[in-house]
């Protein structure tokens, strides 16, 4: 009897977060919609001479932030809602990116430096004669698109299947996710892997027939990213509010108890993890055409940890907080690395410390507290 009552106490935090989530969510949708309307307008309709004109560089930058925000949502879903601190989510991000990159590589066709109709430049350079088997099919988008979802999804499924069934939790899970992305990074650095080695995949020409260097394509990519972010947010919000999401949050708060009540904890964790990985893969696939390159550096463990800090800065367990954090931190990064490059790492490091020590609920939590105290 007592145990059941205490379980109720532990869970009381969730409805509060959900009720607060409505307002934040509405703000998120409004801002996203405004951006989706204004950005194309300011870039394409406003003449370049005007002060209101938005450069294509900025549009691409914003599109990049959108894909980062989607990645941050994916991380928040598993960390904020399920307590799985993943330090390897950029592995899924990069896999999605590589799948997209492979498609765009094949699209280059004979326009590469070596002009080989079949082989990408780096393979010609390495003196390869035939296309490796795993590159087949990537010339069609109908094949590449499912691969963008499947590659990260299957890896997450295999990894999560073992990890969650054997009840690896907490710090241990964090460390092996980090080892996972580290191992992938080492693997992708090898030329023999057939993914371009050190240099990765780059020099893309077009996507679905649209020239990547044209402004309208850039705007299009931004809109697709914004759309994906909106849909991803809605999906995560839906999951969080569903019965499934309730169980997931119960697992976060009291894993053993949830298991003893009779839920198959590992299955809940596994499917949430796989969904999150797929979301990260989509984010990666949107990221690559906008930055124009994907290389093994994307797998670096430090990148994954950085994503976690975006979520922490914005405020985890809210989803829109993750978006806020991703955009804010990346904006600061863009600005600081250009203006004061040596200060950036100090700032990022300080951010980690300050947020974890003083703002455990992030900016959103801080604002909510202030507003709550004020009203």
């Amino acid at each position, binding site marked *: 009897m007592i145990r059941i009552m205490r379980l109720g106490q532990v869970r009381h935090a969730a409805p509060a977060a959900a009720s607060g989530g409505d307002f934040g969510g509405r703000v998120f949708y409004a801002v996203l919609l405004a951006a989706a309307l204004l950005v194309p307008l300011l870039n394409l309709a406003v003449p370049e001479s005007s002060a209101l004109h938005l450069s294509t560089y900025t549009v691409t930058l914003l599109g990049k932030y959108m894909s980062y925000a989607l990645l941050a949502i994916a991380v928040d879903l598993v960390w904020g809602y399920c307590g799985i601190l993943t330090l390897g989510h950029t592995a899924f991000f990069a896999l999605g990116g590589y799948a997209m990159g492979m498609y765009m590589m094949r699209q280059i066709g004979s326009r590469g430096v070596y002009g080989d109709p079949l082989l990408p430049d780096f393979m010609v350079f390495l003196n390869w004669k035939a296309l490796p088997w795993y590159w087949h099919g990537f010339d069609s988008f109908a094949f590449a698109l499912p691969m963008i979802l499947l590659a990260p999804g299957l890896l997450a499924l295999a990894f999560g299947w073992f990890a969650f069934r054997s009840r690896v*939790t907490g*710090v241990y899970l964090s460390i*092996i996710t980090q080892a996972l992305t580290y191992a992938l990074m080492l693997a992708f650095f090898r030329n023999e892997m057939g993914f371009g080695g050190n240099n990765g995949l780059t020099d893309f020409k077009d996507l679905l027939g649209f020239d990547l260097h044209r402004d309208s394509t850039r705007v299009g990519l931004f809109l697709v990213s914004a759309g994906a972010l909106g849909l991803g947010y809605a999906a995560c919000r839906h999951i969080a509010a569903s019965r499934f999401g309730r169980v997931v949050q119960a697992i976060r708060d009291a894993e053993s108890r949830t298991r003893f009540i009779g839920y198959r904890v590992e299955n809940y964790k596994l499917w949430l993890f796989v969904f999150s990985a797929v979301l990260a893969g989509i984010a990666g696939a949107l990221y690559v055409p906008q930055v124009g390159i994907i290389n093994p550096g994307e797998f670096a*463990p430090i990148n994954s940890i950085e994503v976690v*800090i975006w979520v922490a800065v914005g405020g985890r367990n809210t989803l829109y907080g993750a978006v806020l954090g991703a955009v804010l931190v990346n904006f600061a990064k863009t600005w600081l690395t250009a203006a004061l490059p040596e200060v950036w790492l100090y700032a990022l490091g300080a951010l*980690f410390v300050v*947020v*974890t020590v003083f703002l455990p609920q992030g900016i959103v939590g801080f604002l909510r507290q202030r507003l709550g105290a004020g009203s």
Partner: protein
Amino acid sequence: MLLVLLALCLLWMSTARADDAAPLPVDFPGLVAALPQADFAAKQAIVTRMTELHVPQARVLLAAWLDNRLESRRSDGKVFVVEEHDGTLVLVDPFDGKGAGEGAADDFERVRSNNALRKLLKVSIAQFDLKDPDPRVRAAAVRQMRRDLDEDTVTALRAALTQEKDGRAQHEIRVALAVSDLGAGDAAVRLAAVRALDGETAADVYNALKPLAQDSGTESDASMRAAAIGAVRHIEVWRNFYEALETLFFGLSLGSVLVLAAIGLAITFGVMGVINMAHGELMMLGAYTAYVMQQLMPHHVGAALLLSVPAAFLVSGLAGVAIERTVVRYLYGRPLETLLATFGLSLIMQQLVRSVFSPLNRSVATPEWMSGLWQVNDLFSLTWNRVYILVFSLVVFLLLVLILNRTPLGLKVRAVAQNRGMARAMGVRTERVDALTFGLGSGIAGVAGVALSQLTNVGPNLGQSYIVDSFMVVVFGGVGNLWGTLISGMGLGVVNKLLEPYAGAVIAKILVLVFLIMFIQRRPRGLFPQKGRAAEGT
């Protein structure tokens, strides 16, 4: 008076005539002085005479000559052993072996040699070494000669064998003669040579025997080839054995680095449950301490390195205490947050080092006693720095075990780790113990950094590359278990090196990582899980 003058005159004439008629001065300085003017025939005579005289300095001079490093000064005809550096010659006096300043290359003329002379020089040098009082030098001389045998050296060796008393040197000479006999016209001599060489392991013996053992090889005689095959096989067995031993050593060496890196973590993570992502950067601080110590004492490389061990312990330890007091203590019980905060600290520390020392890598000099090879035998040699680091890691490990198990501090650390509340109730000042424990773990990271500075260059990213590995070592060994850390670190190092020849370094590393991921999933508490109640709390 007249008589005296006449006598002087005669004397002068006689010496002058001696220069012409008797071409050879009798002593070493005279021989050296005669070198610049001598023609090749005279030079041969001089070399022969020097060999007979057997003056130790002559060997140096002859060796330099063979290397084309013997020059005479145009102004006064003096001969020097030289070393050329960018057009200037560093002069060494051939009589006392001391430096004699520098000179411009244009002011000197090389003492020339031809093929016949060079051959003579080689034999002559070997004969010097063969007469060295130290039997080890004699043996080494024979081994040296064995690489380049010809009629003259063989003759010299045969002569030396009759004189040789030392067993080992005798043996080396016999081996050398046998190697030369492999090319003899008489099949019986060849067969005897192969038999004599059976059991030898040196690389040049192997290379000499190998063509005889091959089907398409130079040897036509069947019994002879069988003997050669047998001898080659023997060498190969030993080679494989020592290769395995070498792999084991490389593995242990890698393992010792892993253990050094992980052992501090085993304290902060294993005992305190704190995820210290800045651990690698504390190692980096230690490595930079070694660098700074060496800058402070540029003329005492060895002493600087020894002193940097306690210095690095202090620097990193104090940094650790500072981290614990300012950040970590607010985050006890929230391991994931600790992970993030300390990661932030690691970024700050990296950038700090970049600002202070520049982003370039710095190299820390290796003291003489740590550099070079330890040649155990023909097939097996170890690099001294790796041997020292292996020993060092074991010493650090044992010290740590002693501290934890035999000192009051260790007692308190273990008490707080097992049951914080109870320890507090018993009067342990847990906050102080936390700070000291964290400082201890961090200090050991600093000490590890000193060791690393001897293996790689010191740079701001030094620590980053070890952080994933060292966490893996701790988790694999079983959190909170120092012996587990030792065994897992050494084990992973050996496994890594065992896989390397088959899979390549990167794949080996990936395989080990995948193995660890799988292992942790099968046994999340590592090889040697902690037992009892402390293990249950998560």
